[in-house]
């Protein structure tokens, strides 16, 4: 239930905020050094980082619950315990991957 709702919420978030950031980023790169500097400033601001972390989590959550939906579309995984385990796995996986990625980006990336 929760994971199914999250699939919608993260999908809507990626559709609106995710594609907006992607488009802004591409336009900033095309616009030259100055326009990229203003994008970098916004992306490096604490609020910007929080949004980017949120989008990263939304991507992984949507990816994992999307795979879960593809499996269920095939008719598999409807047993209650299997279904629940798969749902919890998507939550654990998305949080772990997001945390690992951002710890690397913020602490170790050159």
């Amino acid at each position: 239930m929760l994971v199914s709702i999250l699939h919608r919420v993260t999908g809507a978030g990626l559709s609106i905020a995710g594609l907006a950031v992607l488009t802004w980023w591409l336009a900033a790169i095309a616009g030259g050094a100055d326009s990229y500097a203003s994008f970098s400033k916004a992306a490096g601001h604490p609020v910007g980082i929080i949004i980017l972390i949120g989008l990263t989590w939304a991507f992984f959550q949507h990816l994992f619950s999307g795979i879960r939906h593809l499996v269920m579309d095939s008719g598999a995984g409807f047993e209650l315990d299997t279904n629940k385990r798969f749902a919890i796995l998507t939550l654990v996986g998305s949080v772990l991957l997001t945390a690992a990625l951002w710890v690397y980006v913020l602490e170790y990336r050159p």
Partner: protein
Amino acid sequence: MSLGQSATPLGKVRGLGSAREGGEHWLTERVTSIALLLLGVWLIASLLFLPALDQRTILEWLHAPSGALPMALLIVIGFKHALDGMKVVVDDYVHEPGNNFALNTLLLFLAVGGGAIALFALARIAFGTIA
């Protein structure tokens, strides 16, 4: 006479049957999802493995076909998948035909417009000259 009380069998089912469409939308959403799985992982991996994230490095990465081509696919398929997904959400929650049409049209304009802006920016990067 209301729809359900029609005298003839034909009158009872007329207008209630299959729309004969929708299957393609459902399938497209899933096929694009598999493409985006690959392209999304490609984007994140690329950003992680680029030596730096300054404008010059990203410009050179997306100027080369090996960067520009997957990015073009990501833009087109990403906006398409977003539009398909948002249509499902709108159709699920907005039932009044006028509002439903207005919202779906707005989404279509946003997706096509946004996709065009992103593609145009990428074209400038890919086909422009690097000073």
